[in-house]
């Protein structure tokens, strides 16, 4: 196997603001192989969107300070010229966004917006580009594509708009598709259809996909690997099965227990993570998650945890200061339906005994 398609190394995106330095992305690394799907999961403001916009070269603020490396197909993207980036955007790397209505231009016909993207990268006539747009619309399952290409975005339903966005993104056969919260703005019933569509097209075109979401449920089916982000950093990464079966970070536990599980009993309560994401200007000292972590110790407020391989599984990394055995014990209790508070009490008691 050659080099990965996308390689992000120690990427930092900081913004200088009146109120201080916002560390939106603070040293994250990940790779995506051809045809593979990576899920990046985190609450809003965890830096997941900023990091992928940076990959696309779309972090346009004058106050952004970007460091690290982003290599795509072996080519350094952060150092690339604007002209080079332009030829990559929408051609090799395409992106779809959360709200398809606001992401489509209200004044242009859907077909024209897709055709425009085609003509930006291909030397084809307007008619050919239009035909390609119609072809793509039919591919993403829009009925009567020739007629619908002639309609404006506001004449589409939410799901159809997102299909059109996907058609636009895939029109140039990109090698990598970044989907930023692709289903968040959609009805629950439509969400599954869109995810299915992305999966189907991915296998058809052998596209690598990065799915960014706040909802682990979205990536459960489609992702090969998952990175969990919190406050600008990756706090846990592993293959999807491991994330769901043996997560090692309290934040991931929190995310897992806030999604409904199909295999759980009906009366299982969903437990939201208490508190709010921290200010990225004044990050809490030590582990950034400590103010919201039910299992916090005094020491965690001072030591900054590193993302380290979990014992026994080199592909699984976690940034948590809790002892590995404690983490496993906690998780095994939590998955049987124990509340975080109860689990915490148990661990405390066990530790006291040990002392």
């Amino acid at each position: 196997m050659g080099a990965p398609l996308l390689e992000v190394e120690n990427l930092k995106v900081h913004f200088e603001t009146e109120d201080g330095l916002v560390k939106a992305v603070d040293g994250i690394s990940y790779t995506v192989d051809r045809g593979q799907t990576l899920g990046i999961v985190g609450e809003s403001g965890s830096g997941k969107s900023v990091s992928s916009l940076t990959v696309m070269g779309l972090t346009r603020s004058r106050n952004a300070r970007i460091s690290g490396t982003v290599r795509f197909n072996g080519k350094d993207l952060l150092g690339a010229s604007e002209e080079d980036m332009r030829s990559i955007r929408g051609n090799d790397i395409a992106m779809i966004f959360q709200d398809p209505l606001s992401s489509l231009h209200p004044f242009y016909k859907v077909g024209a917006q897709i055709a425009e993207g085609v003509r930006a990268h291909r030397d084809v006539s307007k008619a050919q580009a239009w035909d390609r747009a119609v072809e793509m619309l039919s591919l993403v399952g829009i009925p009567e594509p020739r007629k619908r290409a002639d309609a404006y975005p506001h004449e589409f339903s939410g799901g159809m708009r997102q299909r059109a966005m996907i058609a636009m993104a895939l029109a140039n056969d990109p090698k990598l598709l970044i989907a930023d919260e692709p289903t968040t703005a959609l009805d629950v019933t439509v969400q599954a259809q869109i995810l299915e569509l992305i999966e189907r097209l991915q296998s058809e075109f052998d596209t690598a996909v990065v799915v960014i979401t706040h909802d682990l449920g979205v990536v459960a089916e489609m992702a090969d690997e998952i990175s969990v982000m919190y406050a600008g950093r990756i706090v846990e990464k592993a293959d999807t099965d491991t994330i769901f079966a043996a997560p090692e970070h309290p934040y991931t536990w929190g995310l897992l227990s806030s999604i409904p599980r199909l295999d759980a009993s009906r009366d299982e309560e969903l437990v939201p993570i208490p508190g709010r994401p921290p200010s990225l200007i004044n990050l809490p000292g030590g582990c950034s998650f400590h103010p919201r972590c039910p299992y916090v110790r005094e020491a965690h407020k001072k030591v900054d945890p590193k993302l380290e391989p979990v014992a026994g599984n080199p592909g699984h990394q976690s940034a948590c200061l809790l002892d590995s055995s404690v983490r496993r014990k906690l998780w095994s209790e939590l998955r049987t339906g124990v509340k975080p508070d109860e689990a915490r009490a148990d661990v405390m008691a066990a530790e006291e005994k040990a002392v």
Partner: protein
Amino acid sequence: MSTGTGASDLLHADDHGIDQIVAGEAPVAARSPLALFWRRFRKDKVALVALTFIVLLVLVAILAPVIRNLVGAPPPGQTSTDALDDFGLPQGPTSEHLFGVDSIGRDIFARVLDGARVSLLVAFIGTGLSVTIGVTLGMIAGFFRGWVDTLIARVIDILLAFPVLLLGLGLASACSTKDGCLGGALEPGLTIVIFIIVLSNWPYVARIIRGQVLSLREKEFVEASRSLGAGNMRIIFREILPNLVAPIIVYASLFIPANILLEAALSFLGVGVTGQASWGQMLSEATGKIDTAWWYMFFPGMALLLTVLAFNLVGDGMQDALNPKGNKQK
């Protein structure tokens, strides 16, 4: 003129991200909205200078007679042939008449001071009344809804579709004939100018306030207050009104300079302020004399220009400080 490098600039980098976080938590949240507003406004040096100018101008207007005595200028209405030369042409600026005199020998400095009083009086009273009426009717419409709302909203729609200023000009000129209007009940002058200002301004205020109240009354904190047994009055004054301060300030800051210009324009056309010196009226009188007496148009014109400019600068500064992410002027 927002050129801020605020956190809001980053909005397009992550539209559901940074802004929320920067504003969401300590230490930013620890500041009160007013302190935050002042902190942002203070950074705008130009607006601060303009604000200082306005404060001085208000003082000058209030103390006009005192200042006039200090520099030894005659009263604004006093004519004097001494200041006219042998051909009956007015004199330019001298130590005796700082800004020169007009064609019937009145001291322009004293008249510019007098004009400041008129300008500010009309602008403040007109704007104040418009905002009061607009806020009151807008709140009634938005809060009580029902037929009251329908009625007020219709009136607003119709007034906004009307060429109110043009009709106002007509009214002012119809009532500027020597007999006035309605058997003298509507006299030409200040009253009609303020009436026109209020008539043309209040629908804009009412419309925006109505919209805000309609959305505010559904907010959680209002619901919470209601469930705690708060009465309508309490909800209006304690929960809703404080949230309307920002749009009210923005509108007032837009209206004041516009109203100063409106008063000046009406007075320029001869249907505005009578009996007192007004900048617009002085410019009108100066129209035929620009070749012989430049000071006649220059001083009132500059007074008008600087005053409106200062209010516009402060208004821009306030809007930027209240709403740093919006760049819209309206």
